[in-house]
């Protein structure tokens, strides 16, 4: 589950069993002192954590922030974090915009992004995962589809894929494509990590990826599909960034992930027999 300040109070009393690890944005926690730092330390000593970056701007036109990468590496070492993923998007030119923007899907962009991912992997000393992002339009000049773009980058950079099932669903609605066909076209053998989350639907039907609502049934169904096609166990995180319900409700969603994983594992076993 995403580790959020709003959830620290109930989690400090007890961490419910279905939660097996937490995810944090390193940009929100690195070089932090005081009570927040002590709290985080109390959790990272007891639970595995995953880092999911926000500000690296892998697809951005400005220089790659290698200093940030070194700071993230120190943070990960200090807290024993073994996996880092970032969005396949951009959030800065020379300066920050602090939000995720769509990359024009061109051959030149593939080379540019892949080379930056490779640099990030060198600095972090590990393979990283890149996440399919939610987008609200397809930038002009696209020379390939999103699945082709993702596959080309993952292959060229030799990195892993962080599959966000909600983002896939959001894009399938906003851009009008079949989510299962899209899923099957992804390099699923490279998936290292999965996200599920809720979203918001605007009055005109446009879906905004807010992480502020419960996960909807079609996204749960897509998660089942994803597990079936990935065909092995993958750690999965429930993202919730605001509009928090009581902890037991979120834990209910985490249990649902666990159940979906169990179902997929049972199916694999039946096939193996």
């Amino acid at each position: 589950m995403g580790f959020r300040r709003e959830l620290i109070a109930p989690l400090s009393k007890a961490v419910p069993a279905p939660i097996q690890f937490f995810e944090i944005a390193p940009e929100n926690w690195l070089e932090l002192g005081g009570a927040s730092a002590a709290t985080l330390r109390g959790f990272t000593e007891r639970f595995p954590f995953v880092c999911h970056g926000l500000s690296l701007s892998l697809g951005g036109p400005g220089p790659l922030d290698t200093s940030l990468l070194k700071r993230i590496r120190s943070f990960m070492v200090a807290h024993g974090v073994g996996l880092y993923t970032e969005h396949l998007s951009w959030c800065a030119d020379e300066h920050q915009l602090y939000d995720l923007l769509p990359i024009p899907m061109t051959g030149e962009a593939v080379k540019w992004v892949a080379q930056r991912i490779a640099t990030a992997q060198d600095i972090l000393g590990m393979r990283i995962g890149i996440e399919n992002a939610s987008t609200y339009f397809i930038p002009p000049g696209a020379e390939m589809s999103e699945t082709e773009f993702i596959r080309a980058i993952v292959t060229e950079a030799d990195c892993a894929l962080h599959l966000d099932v909600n983002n896939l669903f959001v894009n399938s609605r906003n851009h009008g494509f079949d989510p299962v066909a899209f899923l099957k076209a992804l390099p699923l053998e490279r998936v290292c990590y999965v996200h599920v989350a809720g979203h918001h639907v605007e009055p005109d039907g446009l879906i905004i990826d807010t992480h502020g609502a419960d996960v909807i049934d079609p996204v749960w169904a897509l998660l089942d599909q994803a597990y079936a096609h990935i065909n092995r166990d993958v750690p999965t995180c429930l993202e919730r960034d605001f509009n928090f319900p009581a902890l037991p409700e979120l834990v209910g969603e985490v249990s649902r992930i666990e159940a979906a994983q169990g179902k997929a594992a049972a199916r694999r076993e039946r096939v193996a027999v």
Partner: protein
Amino acid sequence: MTHTPAFQAFQRAFAQHLRDPHHVKRPAGVPDRRAKVYQALLFNNLCGFIDRCFPVSRELIGPPRWARLCRTFYRDWPLSDPLPRHIPREFVAYLASGEIKQPLPAWLPELLHYEWAELAVDIMDVSLPAHNPDGDCLEGRPLINPASMMLAYVWPVHRISPDYRPRKAPATPTHLVVHRSPEGEVRFAQINAVTQRLLSLIAAGHTGRAALTALAAELSHPQHNKLIEYGGALLKDLSRQGVILGTAV
């Protein structure tokens, strides 16, 4: 000339549009409705970080003027720090830069700084050096809490409120110390100019007695012993409040 790939030319044009959507046209190929989604997402995200840090300032100048300030901040101020928590610090620097055309109360930059200091001390990344919490602050070298900031303002920022918007700066400046308790609680204490000077002498590594002797000389104080006696009690008090941790070991 280096070649700018088309995809990057698009990105730069879109970034400029998002920083100033009312004046910079969106690039060709971006649908209006979808551009507006990004405009709102980015601006609201930025304002979220700013609004949370400065509730008093925002209330005092009112949400419409506040939003205009945030808008020009996003457009004009180079934000190079990748950590979103540093956005408020940059906002303080922007207000202090004097580059803003919008007329604003003279005390606003200081009030913003004061509001930011609370957040800054709350999350300050410091480790506590070895110290004796019961040490003698007069004979030993008092250790100032590293999770603290000494603040000096022209305006009485801690008193400014909807009912008190000063038009003229008072004759004497306002000195405050903001510090974090071992339990992580942020506290403010008002001090005077002499105490502030004493704390800066102590920060330079003097013993309490040496700092007070130097201070007595600076002030040409007629009764050094009286000042040292008074100063010793003051140091004890600052120690009790947590501004001073104890003495260095």
